[in-house]
């Protein structure tokens, strides 16, 4: 799992690559929280999250809440299929409240 951070236009773009699972959770928590510390507006790109499990889900919820606590705005964008499936299963798309692009393939 890798986290890329790109700062510009007062917006911090965080890209997450690879799996967000129990195996990478500890590392992911640190790198995500560290990446978030720097900006007011955060966009987290989930396009390359190829695998996600309950541990990954908890992390997404955590960063979302953490951002709200710190008065930052955090948006998940470009959800990968794995993330979409998960949000669908847990009925969380509404809770996270990010615009989700529905591909016609699933519906």
């Amino acid at each position, binding site marked *: 799992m890798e986290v890329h951070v790109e700062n510009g236009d007062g917006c911090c773009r965080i890209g997450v690559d690879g799996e967000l699972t129990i195996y990478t959770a500890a590392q992911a928590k640190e790198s995500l929280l560290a990446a978030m510390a720097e900006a007011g507006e955060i966009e987290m790109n989930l396009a390359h999250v190829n695998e996600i499990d*309950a541990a990954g889900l908890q992390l997404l919820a955590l960063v979302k809440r953490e951002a709200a606590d710190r008065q930052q705005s955090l948006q998940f964008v470009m959800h990968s299929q794995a993330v979409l499936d998960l949000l669908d299963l847990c009925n969380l798309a509404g809770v996270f409240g990010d615009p989700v692009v529905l591909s016609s393939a699933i519906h």
Partner: protein
Amino acid sequence: MNLDEVVLTFIAESRELLQNMEDTLLRIEQSPEDEEMINAIFRTAHTIKGSAGLFGLDYIVSFTHVAESVLDRVRSGELRIDGELVAVLLSSGDHIGGLIEHLAAGGGEPSAELQENDRKLVAALQAYLHHGVANAPAVADEPEQAYTREGGDGVETDLWHISLRFGRDVLRNGMDPLSFIRYLCTLGDIEHIVTLLNNIPPAAEMDPESCYLGFEIGFRSDADKAAIEGVFEFVREDCEIRILPPHSKIADYLKLIAELPEEDLRVGEMLLRCGTLTESELDAALRLQHGKGKDAERPLGEVLVEAHMVQPPVVEAALDKQKQVKDHKNSEASLIRVDADKLDQLINLVGELIIAGASTNLIAQRSGEADLLEATATLSRLVEEVRDSALTLRMVQIGATFNRFQRVVRDVSKELGKDIDLVISGAETELDKTVVEKIGDPLTHLVRNSMDHGIEPAELRVARGKPAKGTLKLNAYHDAGSIVIEVSDDGGGLNKERILNKAIERGLVTDGENLSDREIYNLIFEPGFSTAESVSNLSGRGVGMDVVKRNITALRGTVTLDSEEGKGTTVRIRLPLTLAIIDGFLVGVGNAVYVVPLDMVVECIERAAWENAGGDGRYLNLRGEVLPYLRLREHFEVEGEPARRENVVVVRYGEHKVGLVVDRLMGEFQTVIKPLSKVFSHIHGVGGFTILGSGEVSLILDVPSLIRQGADSQEQQMVAQV
């Protein structure tokens, strides 16, 4: 625990379960009413389905589900066990085994062959699902109607409500809560789900490997409560699970609300969102909240059933499950699963310990200090005990291997249209696990061979005055440091003439050569030899008996055959008990020291005292018995003069006895067999080497091959004399 390991455990357990299921299926034909066996078979299918669902192995789940449904009907008495059903279930077991092997080989989409098989078996199983069997005992059509599920104040909704709070360690235990939700989807539809995220602690305290999730689920399904509970069987200890059936009483929801860790109002809201309760029902529930508590002193089960809160079978299932858990715990306590590599390492270390111990002994003896000698004597006794118990760790009973043949005999006799009984004896005989693993194939071949060629068709048997039912016997026993496995049949026996003619035709022996009966019989172990007049798809193609022999020789064993025409054939396999450590007997020739496996030593005598004055230097007269002997000095071409008083070590292997002439007898010694490198593989008479306490290398004599050589030279001499 890593997920891959869990899958491996699943594979190993499934194999074991399937084996048990097969054994039970084979026995159940005799007593089709035995509930315990039926339950055991059902549980196998159920457990495999459950675990497979957990790993998302849909191809296993979908097939096992059909098998389970049929078994469920058997369990409830709607279907009766008969030979046909057993046959279908056996093939189903095989198919599940095939799917498991497919998973073990890497998984993915099952091959076309497996899928075809799948379709066929599903069709066969479904026939049992749909037709009611005429002789089935009368049962209620719909067991569900035996009780009333809802009282007058049941709620409107027809959804199950499932409330889950996963324990902190679920993820660390290698389980993903989401896979349970996914698996739940196979039983019905999740209408509403609320994921609880607010138990996640603040960032600083949150452990990303702990699980903080909870779910409230509104679930539409026709499954019963036991089935839904079954979904969560694997996290039962790690998760708070509450399941409410559709139309439960308001009081139940109230209880749920009270029990859940979240605030009442929040829980109520979740129930609303799940569609479990309507708003007015929730209001009524919260108003009712104060009027309960009087039932506390009665047994919970009774209260629940009386209040129609739980379906009676659910209580039964719960009690049953508790008992199972208890039983399971008990057997768990007495057995542990150990990696075979670890055992091998232990045996290796014990081997090194023995060598080190021997060298300590030697030093103690040289020093002559009494205290030291005493201490080393105790030490060697302990080392010996450690060795013995380490070796027994690897020993398994041969019974499991034998029992597998029940199935082979059953299948093959059906295929051949012969009626054959398998009689097993000596099942408790123990031998090394590696040997057990490798003996399966040769044994299968011998068993099939006996059934196909040995045992005659029923008409012929009756004509020969034998019972129409053939008998095949598997027997095992210990004998002189080896284990002997016998496969015998009461069939037609081997035809000497035909074997001899065939052998001459193939140029294996020359016409006019004088062979004993036994030698003739054992010709069938030569490559490319088959006397079967017809080739069946089982055996008789002339590949096999030589492979059997090769496999057994590779295990340092031998195979011999006895036969009596018209009465039957017995094949005897003789194998060493262990492959690693032996008790040895040290003998000296010149400066060299050799080890003879102690199990094979019968006695030691002085040569001069027994040798007949008129003897030709090759035989002793041992108490009236002719004993051929072999001079190790000559055999290994050791230089120097023979000792003044030579000794003879009498060794026995199978039915042969031979004397080995040596210079010195040096006593017993525990030995670790180290294999010789391939360079020495052509040297006969040496089975390996070992390191003595003094650091010297000593060769271990391969007695069977020495005996063979002794026997060969005997024959040559006899032929020369003729």
